[in-house]
């Protein structure tokens, strides 16, 4: 007996019991899902019936060992769509896998009725269907994971853009308030933004404020120094400000060399130095102020 016959026989069985299978499958899903309102039921029912249809026609082509081939294209396409939908709506991976796996039980029940006397045939078919559905299940989980990763990557990108502003504080003075951990991808964005802004404004001094950076380890320090070196190559000096006491201790304990860089405790101190360097100064207006 070859796979071709197996596939054909199974497709006939599915075709024969299609409507019952659909009912059982949806009922099964209803039991196992936590959130299952009317709208979800309708969508699930539609997906299930489409999928049954497509699986049947794919099986009719006579191949069920490999779902990567052309005759399974449509099934894979539909599964991709369903998994992506679920990923966007925030389903768990198991919910997505259960969607496929809960077809097993109804299908086995029908098989048992069909092959009542032929145990060997029953075992064969159960095995081929298990393998097939496992493959389809794995496929959905994989797609699910992939679309999740895409969502995460997109959000990361958005965060990156949100979290690296370069502001012009004064004529020729830029400020770069850093918030969050500095990794190499972020350093790259920070560096690019800073350098572009230096060109744009012709700034001579950039203040890098690290008040919002939770920890400074050797890697973060390395990234900071890189940014400073790049700014220096463009002819702009950098001042690091907002160094908290613990961070000052860590930097020294780690042996990070910040001696070539001007460091200040607060952004205000750094600003005063920057003003001096660019030839400006601040005066307190005695007549106007009360304190």
């Amino acid at each position, binding site marked *: 007996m070859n796979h071709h016959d197996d596939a054909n026989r199974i497709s006939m069985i599915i075709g024969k019991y299609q409507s019952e299978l659909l009912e059982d499958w949806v009922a099964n899903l209803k039991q196992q899902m936590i959130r299952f309102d009317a709208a979800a039921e309708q969508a699930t029912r539609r997906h299930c019936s489409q999928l049954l249809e497509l699986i049947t026609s794919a099986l009719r082509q006579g191949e069920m060992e490999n779902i990567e081939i052309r005759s399974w294209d449509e099934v894979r396409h539909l599964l991709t769509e369903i998994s992506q939908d679920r990923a966007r709506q925030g389903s768990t991976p198991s919910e997505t896998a259960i969607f496929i796996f809960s077809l097993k039980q109804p299908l086995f029940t029908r098989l048992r009725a069909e092959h009542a006397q032929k145990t060997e045939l029953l075992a064969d078919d159960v095995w081929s269907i298990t393998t097939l559905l496992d493959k389809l299940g794995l496929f959905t989980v994989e797609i699910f994971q992939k679309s999740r990763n895409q969502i995460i990557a997109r959000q990361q990108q958005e965060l990156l853009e949100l979290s690296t502003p370069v502001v012009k504080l004064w004529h020729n003075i830029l400020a770069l308030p850093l918030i969050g951990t500095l990794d190499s991808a972020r350093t790259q964005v920070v560096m690019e933004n800073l350098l572009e802004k230096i060109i744009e404004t012709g700034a001579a001094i950039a203040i890098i404020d690290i008040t919002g950076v939770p920890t400074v380890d050797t890697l973060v320090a390395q990234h900071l120094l890189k940014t400073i070196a790049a700014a220096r*190559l463009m002819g702009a000096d950098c001042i690091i400000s907002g160094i908290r006491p613990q961070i000052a201790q860590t930097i020294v304990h780690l042996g990070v060399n910040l001696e070539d860089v001007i460091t200040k405790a607060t952004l205000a101190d750094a600003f005063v130095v920057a003003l001096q360097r660019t030839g400006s100064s601040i005066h307190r207006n005695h007549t106007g102020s009360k304190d």
Partner: protein
Amino acid sequence: MHDRLAMTLQDDLTNRIVQDQAKGVLIDISALDVVDTFIGRMISNTAAMARVLDAATVVVGMQPAVAITLVEMGLSLPGVRTALNIERGMALLGKRHYE
């Protein structure tokens, strides 16, 4: 800028510094948009040569992409002075002249 041209530049520059008794050298690399390790070293070496001949050297007009590449390659040109554009570079050289 290709490698041969860079070598010629070093020759010409050192000769001219001696010939004109120049006290300042301004290297404008604003038209340079691609660097490799060789060119990076070349810039650094050229500046060092000019310094040896007692001419203050300022590299000006480096593009952001070039700066990032050099830093990533570990060539942060220590000891070479830099400025954003030619005006700033000239100002830097002028200041140095009166010191």
